């Protein structure tokens, strides 16, 4: 799946897969609310992450998680790069200062705020380890 994404992109399927491994180890994840989170580095396809009743996975196809609340986090390569590089505050800071665009169901987004925080940390951690 990552092959479909340009090498110029920082946010790749491979990176998300490695971040999911880190998220799977989070002891709090069984308390996370369910949603499908699209991560988009424009121009490029959305990478879809499904958080569903204590599990975290890449969306298997377009229908996987389609019945859940939908959230998208969108930015260009330049906008994603500092977040992935470990900007202190991560996705939380990106939301407060509009460094990325957060779209979709606002209630689900805020309900998932701890998950969003952990997702940002996991992406940055996976990016750094690579």
């Amino acid at each position, binding site marked *: 799946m990552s092959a479909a994404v340009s090498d110029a992109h920082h946010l790749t399927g491979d990176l998300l897969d490695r971040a999911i491994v880190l998220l799977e180890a989070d002891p709090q994840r069984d308390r996370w609310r369910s949603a499908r989170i699209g991560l988009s580095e424009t121009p490029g396809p959305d990478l879809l992450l499904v958080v569903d009743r204590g599990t975290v996975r890449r969306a298997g196809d377009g229908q996987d998680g389609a019945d859940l609340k939908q959230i998208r986090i969108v930015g260009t390569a330049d906008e994603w790069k500092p977040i992935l590089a470990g900007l202190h505050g991560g996705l*939380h800071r990106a939301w*407060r200062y*509009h460094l990325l665009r957060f779209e979709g169901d*606002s209630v689900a987004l805020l*309900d998932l*705020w*701890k998950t969003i925080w952990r997702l940002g940390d996991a992406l940055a951690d996976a990016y750094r380890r690579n």
Partner: protein
Amino acid sequence: MSYLDIDGARLYYEQFDNGRPPLALVHGAGQDTLSWRYVSDRLTDHFSVIALDLPGHGKSARRPDGAAIADYADHIPYVDGLMAALGHRRYVFMGHSFAGGLGLSLARARPDSVAAVIMLDGTGCPSAAWGGNAFDLVAINPTDWMEVNFRLICGPTTSPERVDEISRDVLRCPPDVVQGDIKAFARTDLQSDLPTMTTPLMAVHGLDDWSIPPELGRRTCEQIGGPAVFHGLSDVGHFPHVEAPARLMDAIDELWPGFAKNHLELNATEESTR
């Protein structure tokens, strides 16, 4: 434990009275007097310290109508009323974060009460980066949002134990009260009033604070009409009094005596009444 009924609300306060000039010590958004636990003792080297829980915070009751306060103006009668009830008609105000804006608002509204403001990671100026509906959306889940916020606005080098401690503070505060604090803070814009204000201002700021960046504290000092001094603490985030209390107090020990000697109207500052 000490309580006073002020305007129908039972307010909790802690008093360390030693005859020195009185200091009203006010916590940040979603916090309470416990946030001062690492510095209140050393502050008594300079002040008679009165730390208080704002209405709805910590061990203080809500105001009589039960609603959370979402405007600095509505906090002012409680802070000033408590200090007056304790016999302090004129005092120094020290506030952290959102309470920095509260201190400036209090000094603007009641200049005869406030002899000086010490602002810890606070601001009287808004940030151009804030805006949109971000702070309104926090109402959906203010406790989780604020817990994450507290955790991430600590400095990157702050010990994990202190970060955990800070992030847990907000769990003691009702969500609507947290949201009220955020709204009051988000409305902070005293820029048109600052040049007309003559209250002495001392601002101490963590230089790694990206929540209220140090530029905003510095700009507030530049804009206020009265004497002002800005001091930055390197490798410290939004909570210097918890992240680096010894360094914060070293800075106050160094700065305050000279600042007070030059700018504090000591004759107008009542000595504490025992």
